[in-house]
């Protein structure tokens, strides 16, 4: 009888060990925050509650649609006594504006609003209105005095181009502080990775094909952020059949036309990746190349209207073009 029992245990052991396989447990969650959909997968430790809480906390500071957020108050009153984090993020955004010659501009919000991208009531503003909007867009007019941020009358700030990036940087800190060494989060399309996959291989992030349903290729990353800006999801078609997308060129107060269909930036800092992806979409491939050469600290994948995929030299071996996508791969050196 004893023998029978031990055999039974042996069988049970074989069964259990085969089904467990020793991989760390995956904790997945998804939620809506910051006007977008977010999801996360962590391995070994569950941190989904912390990610969601942080997204909601930052939303209450940065949201442009919430009149009670610090940015909301600033836009209504023209001035606000802001938290250290809001001041810090505005300063970071202004730094990116300077580096990109104003291609990123957190004061472009009146124009975004006038085009209807905040409400869905799309409209092409009149030439006179466009001139007014251009006069209401200038990041150099944002004044920071200690913890007080102010803007001239009629100006508005939107941190939408950097807020999800800031969340990405915070999420990476929170996950690492919880001892997590392997995680991936999709924060409204911004992909944030911690370490490698549980099996030790790099994370694989697909880059959306702006012209179709598939992807242009896959980039392999370790402990990085991958942020794409493009005009392929949030757009409307005007009465002349022209696609008008939500990324507004601060210089013209009209949808950006830098010759790109999407711009992806890969790097360590998510705020930088987030802000630069917008700026690079606005400035186009030539200026982006010059910026990459002079500044460094990031890599990029640009999908051009001409059907090319341009990747910077630092990622040429970790980017894999989808053979069936029909794009021509070129390396920027």
């Amino acid at each position, binding site marked *: 009888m004893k023998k029978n029992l031990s055999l039974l245990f042996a069988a049970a052991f074989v069964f259990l060990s*085969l089904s467990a396989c020793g991989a760390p447990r995956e904790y997945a969650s998804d939620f*809506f925050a910051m006007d977008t959909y977010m*999801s996360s997968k962590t391995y070994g430790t569950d941190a989904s509650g912390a990610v969601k809480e942080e997204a909601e906390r930052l939303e209450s500071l940065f949201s442009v649609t919430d009149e009670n957020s610090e940015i909301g108050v600033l836009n209504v009153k023209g001035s606000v006594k802001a938290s250290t984090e809001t001041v810090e993020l505005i300063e970071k955004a202004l730094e990116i504006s300077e580096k990109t010659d104003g291609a990123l501009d957190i004061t472009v919000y009146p124009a975004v609003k006038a085009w209807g991208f905040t409400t869905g*009531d799309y409209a092409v503003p009149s030439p006179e209105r466009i001139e007014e909007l251009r006069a209401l867009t200038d990041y150099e007019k944002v004044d920071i005095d200690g913890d007080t941020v102010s803007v001239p009358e009629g100006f508005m700030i939107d941190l939408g181009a950097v807020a999800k990036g800031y969340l990405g940087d915070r999420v990476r800190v929170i996950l690492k502080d919880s001892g997590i060494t392997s995680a*991936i989060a999709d924060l409204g399309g911004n992909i944030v990775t911690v370490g490698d996959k549980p099996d030790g291989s790099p994370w694989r992030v697909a880059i959306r094909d702006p012209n179709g349903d598939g992807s242009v290729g*896959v980039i392999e990353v370790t402990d990085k952020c991958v*942020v*794409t800006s*493009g005009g392929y999801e949030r757009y409307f078609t005007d009465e002349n059949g022209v696609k008008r997308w939500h990324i507004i060129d601060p210089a013209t107060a009209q949808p950006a036309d830098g010759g790109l269909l999407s711009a992806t930036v890969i790097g360590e800092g998510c705020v930088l990746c987030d802000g630069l992806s917008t700026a690079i979409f606005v400035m186009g491939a030539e200026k982006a190349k010059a910026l990459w050469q002079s500044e460094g600290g990031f890599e990029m994948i640009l999908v051009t209207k001409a059907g090319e995929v341009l990747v910077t030299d630092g990622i040429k071996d970790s980017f894999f073009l989808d053979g069936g996508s029909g794009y021509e791969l070129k390396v920027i050196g």
Partner: protein
Amino acid sequence: MIRTRTWIVIIAALAVAAAGAILLIRFFGAPGTTAEIVKGGEVLYTIDLDKVTTEYEIEIGDEDGDRNTVTVRPGMICVSSADCPDKICVNTGWASKNHPYPIICMPHELIIRIVGAEGEADAEAG
């Protein structure tokens, strides 16, 4: 004695069969590509996309009058039309086994997510 031997054979056979079954499921019996249509946090539909043979539509409405029309085809699913202001759900296009990334309609709190598919990547930037 004979009884003990019979037990050994039975248990050994069971162990081998169980191990074999697990290995088979693990390596060959990958579950089908399943789409979940989630609204307001509740899973409304679970569709095995591999078993779809003909195209059909599902109307997803709610008491606020919000509407999304979902089109299901063999192996793929999309939001084909919607009365949301931004139409991002429609512009997102198809989700499938090879492109298993979620389709979101923020204004209507609608998510179509693909489960059980190993795509070419772990996530999609965009």
